[in-house]
């Protein structure tokens, strides 16, 4: 549906009305300055199409449309919209939903950002493209999604490990060099050692010289000391003092010995035994006799005591025996032993019973005791039997029959038999039996009648049998009872009054009671008889015992009548009296010989004591007194013995003291003589006398030491002390002298093989020796360093062998490299997965994307000459642009305003067309939508839109810019030419759309109308010059070809660099708007490529496009990405102040990351901390600004291009390898030139592309 005319009567925001007639069915360019009413045209048309537009605003608009069925008039009056066809009201056409109206009305603002209108579009796309999977979810997870820092720690560790390895290698190299030096150092060392030895020899010579001098000087000093100084040992004064102290000690000892001798002599005299021959043995013998005497005396006293005790015991027994009922003899003895009289005397005759005679023996005593016990027991049993007998009844002669248990037992049995006999049949019992018999007979008759088979006669017979049984039973009972009565009668018991059961039963009770009584009496009488028998027997036994006791009493003299009164006690007293009498006699017998021996012993001892001045008081003196005397004598004897011993000891001490004194004095003299201060032969000499002569000599020496000798000794001692005071000085000199002599001798020995040095020393050539030694020392010192170096190097080698730091550094580097390689593998895997999945998703989208999206993408590709394609990811804003040059997706925000507008234009137009499918089509309105596009792009968009118009779509383009109108005109003219040309080759190209210019200013009679002559003059872009035989370099200059930025995506590479050998093709592509590699790839994928390019051309372009990519990837190896201010800023490492300085340095080194780092290491930026340097280095390394790998050579780059060319499929037949190699070499050279041109332009600040010779 196309608008033919529009008449605005009333429209808010515009004064007056206006009318647009003769509108083009194709393109209508509504041009006019601001506020000229361009937008009113749009608003008026919207109001004509939808009642909801401008509602309540009193709009009055008329419009005429044309559709397939003819003209259609629309009238909008206020809020009422009516449609007429051929003058008749008709239904409104089937318009797209009002919500899609914005898709038809595109303003600049609408196209600068996605609007709400895009949401339904996005949703529609999303639904269409979901495909039931969330591919992005897969891509966002492991193993396809890697961290941004993936591999960075490992790369850093690898860098550290390599640095460590280099350090170790350097260290090892240095060590190796040192090791190789060891041999040389060893030679130097040996020379130095020889020099040192020679220097040492010269040193010895000097030492010899100095020693010799010293010997001489010390010899002179020693000559000034007294002679004999060398005989002093230094301890003479101490030894002399010690000897003199000893001399005094000996004198004291001599005096003490003599005093002790005098004391001993006094003690000897005081003992009174000085001249006695008494010996200790004599005394010991007498002491033994006294001890024996004392034993006798003690034994005699003991026997006396025993006799007295025995007599007392005897007397007490006798006294007790006198008490009744004692025997007569005891009574007589008791009478003699008057208790009131004195006790019996030892010498008095004892009682009769003292004499030996029949004595009570223990058996007798025991037999008497047993007999007495037996008698007591027998008596007790007799008494018990007698008591029992008294309690038992006496037997009565001829007891009554009733009391005869046998009769009673017979009567009882008869009565029981009676009662248990069959009971007599009495009338009652017979009546009962008859009744039972009758009942039984009746029952039998009834049974017979009842048909049991029993005849009535049988029943009667049975009853008769019962009666017969009863009769026999009654007969037997009578016989048994008769027998019972007879038996009772035979028992002799009193007859019964009647023989009825009751009477019999009563009598039976009586008989049983009588029987019980009779049986008890019988048992007691039987017991009485038994007790009487036992009593008699016991009485017999008692009589026998008493008879035996009486006989025993008579035998021992005891009155048998008193057996019960204390026979046993009497026997014991008698035994005691007999035993003590015996003891008394024995004691008397032992005492008599003792008393006979004691007297003579006492006398002899008393005589001995008297002989030695210790007489006892009398001859009866007992042993105790004799012992006291003997003890006194012993004390005196001991005194004599000790005094004699002390005297002898004192004599010996005296003799020893004399000898010691002599020796001390001799030692003093010897010491002084040894010290050289006492002449030989003076005092103290001659001490070597024989020992036996010494005592006598000593006696003389005690007081006879001559005064002259003593004086000589004192003088000698004084002289000795004087010399001792000089001794230390003398000895020091002497020692020095000896040392010097030794030194000289040793040094001379040391120099045994160097006689010339000995001679020089002896010749006192000190200066010459010293000088030579200095020279040699210097040589040795110089060589000593080699020894240290050798030792140090060997130590380092041992340390290196032990530490294995090289092996560990290698292993660490290898391990870290492997870890990084693992990260590479992960990254490759992730990239492979992403690539495959993304590729599949894109393919699916391409296959499944809605036609509208496909159209939109195609349009955008055409609008942008292949530089951009629509990318729909279903997220966020939904669509974005894929930058074919940069080879990455750019969001709307990342696009230029013009590109964004073109993208949204393409999307909306495509969807508007989609929305109206099957319904009424509407014109498209573009409200300064392309204002921001350049002429070229404007032309492309306009051409696309013109194609739409040519297809029948009416288009309104509203603009304030006159040049826009010109561009549309130009496009229409060009299309006319094109269409005419196409008509010639019958390609079927559509006829160009007609373009009408609607000048609003003129339409509304405004002042600022467009000057058609001026403003609508066609303008064109600068033409792209054809090569026309130009050399490639010149053509590059003419085109203004930029160099190749090797760090930019390959897609940004100008096509010149790969088509230098086909400038015509290049020109053709440029004219088609395809300038760079990225758009070329997109272009090659489009249908347009097949019309513009032949198959071989497309194949060549594909191959070369891929080889450029390969070349640039290879070129980057070993080259760090240039460092610029932006990169430094992005690192985040630098402060603003430091950023300026470092950026300046980066500029200075041409962006070379390695040079920048080196410059920083060399402090070319002051105050830049080392930590920051390291951090920046790592960042630059991670971001590819530093690359330690070796760069590829030109031939390697050419090989890379060759490989790329070789592996890219070609529609052509496979090229010969040589031809491909040649092409690769040529292409690589061109690319080198391109890269160098960019580099040159960057570094020389000149535009290299302006110099043809450069290319």
């Amino acid at each position: 549906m196309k608008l033919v005319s529009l008449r605005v009567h009333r429209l808010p925001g515009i004064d007056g009305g206006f009318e647009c007639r003769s509108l083009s069915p194709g393109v209508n360019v509504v041009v006019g300055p601001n506020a000229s009413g361009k937008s009113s045209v749009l608003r008026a048309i919207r109001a004509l199409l939808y009642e909801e537009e401008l509602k309540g605003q009193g709009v009055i608009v008329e419009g005429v449309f044309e559709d397939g069925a003819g003209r259609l008039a629309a009238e909008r009056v206020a809020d009422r919209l009516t449609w007429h066809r051929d003058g008749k009201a008709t239904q409104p056409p089937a318009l797209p939903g009002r919500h899609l109206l914005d898709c038809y009305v595109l303003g600049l603002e609408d196209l600068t950002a996605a609007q709400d209108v895009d949401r339904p579009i996005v949703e529609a796309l999303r639904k269409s493209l979901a495909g039931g999977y969330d591919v992005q979810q897969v891509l966002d997870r492991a193993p396809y999604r890697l961290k941004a820092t993936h591999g960075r720690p490992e790369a850093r560790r690898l860098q550290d490990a390599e640095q460590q390895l280099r350090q170790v290698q350097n260290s090892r190299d240095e060590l190796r060099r040192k090791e190789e030096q060891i041999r040389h150092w060893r030679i130097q060392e040996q020379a130095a050692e020889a020099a040192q030895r020679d220097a040492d020899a010269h040193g010895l010579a000097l030492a010899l010289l100095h020693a010799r001098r010293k010997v001489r000087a010390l010899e002179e000093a020693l000559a000034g000391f007294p002679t004999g100084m060398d005989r002093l040992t230094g301890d003479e004064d101490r030894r002399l003092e010690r000897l003199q102290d000893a001399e005094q000690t000996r004198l004291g000892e001599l005096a003490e010995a003599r005093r002790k001798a005098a004391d001993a002599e006094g003690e000897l005299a005081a003992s009174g035994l000085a001249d006695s021959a008494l010996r200790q043995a004599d005394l010991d013998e007498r002491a033994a006799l006294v001890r024996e005497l004392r034993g006798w005396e003690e034994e005699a006293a003991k026997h006396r005591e025993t006799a007295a005790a025995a007599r007392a015991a005897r007397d007490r027994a006798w006294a007790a025996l006198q008490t009744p009922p004692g025997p007569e003899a005891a009574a007589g003895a008791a009478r003699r032993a008057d208790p009131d009289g004195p006790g019996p005397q030892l010498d008095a005759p004892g009682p009769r019973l003292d004499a030996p005679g029949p004595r009570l023996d223990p058996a007798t005593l025991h037999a008497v005791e047993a007999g007495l016990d037996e008698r007591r027991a027998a008596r007790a049993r007799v008494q018990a039997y007698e008591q029992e007998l008294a309690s038992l009844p006496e037997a009565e002669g001829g007891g009554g029959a009733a009391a005869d248990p046998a009769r009673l037992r017979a009567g009882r049995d008869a009565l029981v038999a009676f009662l248990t006999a069959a009971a007599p049949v009495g009338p009652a019992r017979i009546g009962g039996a008859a009744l039972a018999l009758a009942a039984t007979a009746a029952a039998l008759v009834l049974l017979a009648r009842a048909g049991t088979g029993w005849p009535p006669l049988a029943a009667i017979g049975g009853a008769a049998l019962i009666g017969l049984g009863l009769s026999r039973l009654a007969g037997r009972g009578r016989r048994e009872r008769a027998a019972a009565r007879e038996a009772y009668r035979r028992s002799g018991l009193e007859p019964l009054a009647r023989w009825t059961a009751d009477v019999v039963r009563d009598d039976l009770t009586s008989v049983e009671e009588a029987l019980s009584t009779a049986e008890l009496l019988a048992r007691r009488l039987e017991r009485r008889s038994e007790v009487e028998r036992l009593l008699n027997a016991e009485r017999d036994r008692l009589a026998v015992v008493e008879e035996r006791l009486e006989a025993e009493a008579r035998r021992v003299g005891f009155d048998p009548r008193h057996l019960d009164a204390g026979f046993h006690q009497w026997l014991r007293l008698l035994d005691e009296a007999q035993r003590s009498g015996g003891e008394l006699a024995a004691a008397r017998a032992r005492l008599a010989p003792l008393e006979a021996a004691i007297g003579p012993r006492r006398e002899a001892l008393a005589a001995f004591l008297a002989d030695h001045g210790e007489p006892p008081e009398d001859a009866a003196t007992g042993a105790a007194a004799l012992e006291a005397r003997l003890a006194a004598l012993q004390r005196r004897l001991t005194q004599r013995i000790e005094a004699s011993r002390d005297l002898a000891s004192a004599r010996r001490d005296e003799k020893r003291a004399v000898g010691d004194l002599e020796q001390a004095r001799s030692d003093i003299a010897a010491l002084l003589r040894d010290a050289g201060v006492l002449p030989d032969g003076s005092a103290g000499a001659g001490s070597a006398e024989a020992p036996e002569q010494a005592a006598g000599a000593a006696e003389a020496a005690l007081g006879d030491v001559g005064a002259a000798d003593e004086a000589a000794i004192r003088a000698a001692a004084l002289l000795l002390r004087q010399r001792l005071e000089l001794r230390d000085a003398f000895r020091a000199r002497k020692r020095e002298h000896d040392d010097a002599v030794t030194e000289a001798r040793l040094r001379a020995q040391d120099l045994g093989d160097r006689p010339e040095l000995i001679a020089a020393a002896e010749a006192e050539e000190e200066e010459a020796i010293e000088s030579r030694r200095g020279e040699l020392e210097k040589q040795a010192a110089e060589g000593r360093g080699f020894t240290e170096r050798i030792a140090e190097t060997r130590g380092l080698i041992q340390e290196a062998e032990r530490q294995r730091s090289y092996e560990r550094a290698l292993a660490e580097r290898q391990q870290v490299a492997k870890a990084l390689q693992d990260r590479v593998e992960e990254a490759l895997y992730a990239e492979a997965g992403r690539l495959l999945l993304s590729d599949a998703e894109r393919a699916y989208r391409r296959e499944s994307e809605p036609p509208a999206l496909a159209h939109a993408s195609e349009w955008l590709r055409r609008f942008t000459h292949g530089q951009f394609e629509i990318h729909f990811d279903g997220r966020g804003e939904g669509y974005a642009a894929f930058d074919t040059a940069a080879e990455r997706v750019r969001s709307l925000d990342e696009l230029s305003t013009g590109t964004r507008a073109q993208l949204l234009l393409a999307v909306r137009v495509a969807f508007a067309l989609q929305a109206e499918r099957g319904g009424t089509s509407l014109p498209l309105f573009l409200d300064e939508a392309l204002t921001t596009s350049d002429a070229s792009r404007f032309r492309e968009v306009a051409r696309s839109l013109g194609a739409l118009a040519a297809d029948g779509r009416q288009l309104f383009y509203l603009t304030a810019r006159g040049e826009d109108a010109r561009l549309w005109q130009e496009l229409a003219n060009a299309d006319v030419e094109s269409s005419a040309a196409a008509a010639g080759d019958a390609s079927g190209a559509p006829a160009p759309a007609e373009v009408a210019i609607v000048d609003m200013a003129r339409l509304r009679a405004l002042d600022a109308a467009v000057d058609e002559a001026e403003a609508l003059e066609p303008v064109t872009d600068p033409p792209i010059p054809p090569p026309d035989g130009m050399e490639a370099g010149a053509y590059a200059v003419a085109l203004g070809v930029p160099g190749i930025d090797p760090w930019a995506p390959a897609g940004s590479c100008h096509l010149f660099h790969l088509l230098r050998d086909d400038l015509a093709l290049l020109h053709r592509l440029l004219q088609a708007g395809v300038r760079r590699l990225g758009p070329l790839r997109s272009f090659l994928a489009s249908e347009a490529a097949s019309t513009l390019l032949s198959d071989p051309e497309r194949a060549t372009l594909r191959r070369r496009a891929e080889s450029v990519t390969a070349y640039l990837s290879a070129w980057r190896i070993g080259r760090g990405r240039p460092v610029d201010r932006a990169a430094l800023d992005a690192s985040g490492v630098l402060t603003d102040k430091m950023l300026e300085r470092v950026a300046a340095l980066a500029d200075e080194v041409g962006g070379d990351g390695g040079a920048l780092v080196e410059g920083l290491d060399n402090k070319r930026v002051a105050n830049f901390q080392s930590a920051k340097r390291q951090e920046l280095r790592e960042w630059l390394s991670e971001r590819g600004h530093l690359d330690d790998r070796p760069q590829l050579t030109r031939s390697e780059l050419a090989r890379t291009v060759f490989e790329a060319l070789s592996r890219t499929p070609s529609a052509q037949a496979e090229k010969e390898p040589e031809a491909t190699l040649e092409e690769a070499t040529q292409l690589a050279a061109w690319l080198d030139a391109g890269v160098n041109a960019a580099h040159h332009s960057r570094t020389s600040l000149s535009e290299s592309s302006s110099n043809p010779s450069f290319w």
Partner: protein
Amino acid sequence: MLNVKLLCAADIHLGRQPSRLPEALPMQPSDLGPAAAWWRLVEAAVDEGVDAVLIAGDVVDREDDFFEAYADLRDGVARLAEAGIEVVAVAGNHDTRVLPRLADALADGPGSFTLLGRDGVWEGMSLGGAGGERVEVVGWSFPKPTTTTDPLASGPPARAGGGVRPVARIGLLHCDRDQTGSAYAPVRSSELDAAPVDAWLLGHVHRPDIAAGDRPIGYLGSLVGTDPGEPGAHGAWLLEVDADGRLSLALVPLAPLRWESRSVALDGLEEGAEVAVRIAEALDALDREIDGDAVRPLAVGCRLRLTGRTRHRAGVSEALRRDDPTASQPSLRRGTSYFIDTVTMDASPEYDLDALATERSPAGALAQRLRLLDGLGDPDERRALVERARRRLAEVVAGAPLAAADSVPPDEERTVALLRRAGYEALDSLLAQRGEGS
């Protein structure tokens, strides 16, 4: 008469430490490396009472390692000398400086170390067995780290005539066999076969391929595999020569570290987490295999490849991410620590890729690309896909910070492998979103 016993090794690479060892191993890396293996060899030679130790080059890893590897070598030779065992070696490309130095240093000594073929000139020497047998060893040493010279072009010398002929003649050589143009003494197998020796003990290639036989010819392999690229049993070879010159050869697995690759079939898996059980079972089986070795390794590193067919691929991947076996504590089996270096998912899914590829969905599109990678579909499309991926992957390895790894961009084969593995895992994840392939 007793046999002549020679313990032979090559590619010891003293000074190198094994890589890819987990930190949780109970021993130090140095306990598992060439130095430890060298000392095991020394002690084995002493214990075995061999007549000599023969080394076919690359004794040290770095030609400038004059202190650490050199010290190990020197001390080991001294230990062998104490036991009366001679050491005969040729220099490989790694030890053109160290071995001559050692030979010079020991020249004044008891003659326990002999460097044969110095300066690239064939040289021979005799070794006497305990019974008086004589074995001749001929060898050639690298004169410099690289040489394109074919050593066999100039030797070895013909067998000497007359005198006391040796019972056997052993060739000791470090070379690159059948690698024309190699900078490491290239030789041809035919030349080796034609040379007048009874056995060729070769060094340079770390994977042993020498076999016992009448005339053993081949690489002895490295003494210990220092990375997963050297799998299997490594060690020294005991070569015995009897009085009649008959040779017998047997591997003595001395390596303290061993690498192995194993496939773990996931068929019949009940759930993803069960993969841990399968892995443990695989290690148990491996341990049973190793159990027969006379000298057990201290540690065994395993590379596991998950194979078979399972519908729990995504679950397995998730389980491996959750309980990463490569990060687990090494497991101890009879004194040997087992650890897992890598686990590669190569198990096939149970879904029908062809049917999936007909689905109009991202999963369908992904399945189409996997079919392409599997060689099904348009070869041009496949080539374009692979090239696109190669470009992207090349940029990955060239970009910072990964560029520091100096990795070579994946070639086509590796690119396809990466795409397949990552693609299948991505497909697993997509299908898991709708409850399939979990």
